[in-house]
């Protein structure tokens, strides 16, 4: 029994970070599933995270009560971002969102009233890992319902072929606007959850690294199903821990090599609905 509780104690924070990364990855997946590659989730997370932190610090309320504020903050920001970015096409939007990430850090550094500036912000608030997991499960349920809803079908159509989607009476712009709003709300939530996990926010907390964590999680896990984002975040969070245990001297290299091999051999990610469909079809043929 000791062994079990020790293992839990040792890896509960890994599980926590995996859950937070999954939420952030779902934010990126939300837009990607409507055909938009955007790194702006980092900015929603930053806004939601810092605002949520301030709410917790000043109103003295717990993270669960600060969550709605963060969701709202992320949503509002994503609305503004969508208004501007949706005019751009294809990879220009990806580049613009990357620029937004870079600007986010500058803003964070220069808005000490909200962010603590270079000193950072200490947030002595805790959230049990179990609650965090419950929140993630709830979010997964929402994504599952979304996937089978009218919106989910429309998003898939827009991703595959915007022209065809438009001819079926779906406005690609409107669908993508909804995708941005979902991404913003989820991103804001992820930001505040990350803040609670770290208990300390610095200007580097929401920056390029986390952008790459999000996108790598989504692609690694498989960008054609929401479960991919969750699976990818789990793997991406666990890889460094495993690498540290197996090859402590070269853990970063091992981490990179593992990422490389997964992508080369499973370029569509770990969770690939197309492969499932094929396997099912093959089974039916054999039967």
């Amino acid at each position, binding site marked *: 029994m000791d062994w079990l509780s020790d293992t839990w104690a040792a890896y509960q924070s890994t599980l926590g970070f995996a859950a937070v990364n999954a939420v952030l990855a779902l934010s990126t997946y939300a837009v990607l599933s409507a055909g938009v590659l955007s790194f702006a989730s980092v900015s929603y997370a930053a806004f939601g995270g810092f605002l949520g932190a301030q709410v917790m610090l000043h109103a003295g309320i717990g993270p669960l009560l600060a969550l709605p504020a963060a969701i709202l903050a992320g949503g509002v920001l994503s609305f503004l971002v969508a208004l501007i970015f949706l005019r751009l096409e294809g990879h220009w939007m990806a*580049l613009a969102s990357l620029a937004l990430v870079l600007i986010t850090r*500058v803003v964070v550094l220069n808005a000490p009233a909200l962010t603590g500036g270079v000193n950072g912000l200490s947030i002595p608030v805790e959230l049990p890992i179990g609650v965090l997991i419950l929140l993630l499960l709830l979010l997964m349920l929402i994504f599952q319902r979304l996937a089978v809803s009218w919106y989910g079908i429309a998003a898939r159509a827009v991703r595959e072929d915007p022209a065809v989607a438009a001819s079926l009476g779906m406005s690609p712009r409107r669908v993508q606007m909804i995708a941005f709003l979902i991404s913003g709300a989820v991103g804001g939530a992820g930001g505040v959850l990350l803040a609670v996990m770290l208990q300390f926010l610095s200007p580097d907390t929401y920056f390029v690294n986390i952008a790459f964590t999000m996108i790598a999680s989504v692609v690694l896990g498989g960008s054609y199903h929401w479960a991919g984002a969750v699976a990818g975040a789990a793997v991406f969070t666990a890889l460094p821990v495993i690498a540290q245990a197996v090859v402590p001297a070269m853990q*970063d290299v091992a981490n990179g090599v593992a*990422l*490389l091999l997964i992508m080369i051999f499973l*370029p569509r990610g770990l969770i690939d609905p197309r492969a499932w469909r094929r396997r099912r079809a093959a089974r039916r043929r054999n039967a």
Partner: protein
Amino acid sequence: MELFAEQVLNGCALGALYALFAIGFGLVFATLGILNAAHGTYASWAAIAALAATERLGLPFPLAVLAGVVAGGLLALFVDQVAFQPLRARGAGMLAALITSIAFWIILDSLAGFATGQQSLSFPQGSYPARMYHLGTMPLPAMQLLTIAAMLVATFGIHLLVRRSRFGAAMRAVGWNGAAAALGGVNPRMVVLATAFLAGATSGLAGVLAGISTQNVSFSLGEGLLLKGFAAVVVGGYDDVRGAAIAGVALGIAEVITAQYLSTSLRDGITYALLLGFLLVRPRGLFGRAGFVRA
């Protein structure tokens, strides 16, 4: 007034580094369609290779630079073949390539840290031109002049290559659609290899020159160039070498002047705001024409 002129020169030299890096970064993006996060490590490794050539092999300055440039090119070639070629063969898109490039970024950055013993190294005094020329009382450091000259030569050379030569046409054709190029007999694989090498070599040159003039040869060298080079490519338009060069130099000058006359904390903000503004107002960059999306 002289201070202003000095700072403009400083900005030009700094911007020339951004420009050189951006040219390589843009070539890969335009021709191979890859947003390559590992590109900065080519610059770091080129500088490390040039330093090793100087210290271990005792090569003179021009040969050491050449060694660095070739190392940058070969590294780019290697990364392309390992990280991108398998995905190309499977028809996997730009996203998977972005992730494999991040993987190589992690790997090469980490190895560069080991190679330099986690230190920031520098080229030994006397291993590079360090003379200070003067125009009136204004100091003109030899490395700054050399950097600007290298940028000009590289820009015009590569611009002519891409726009005027048959090989350049093949590069642009492969960048647009590999099969369409092959219908004319072009071997897309060779063009990809040559482009990767050229891109790595150009960014490698930026790395070597930056390593010398900033006295910082370490894994962090490439990262700074990557962000600013990225900005230069977007502002200048990734399919035009001249645009990337002009944007790089302009960013360098803007940075220096902002820091001198406004504030350092706003410096990067202005760079990136400029970047975002350009994307929104003129997404195709300075020289971009009504273009064709990759097919």
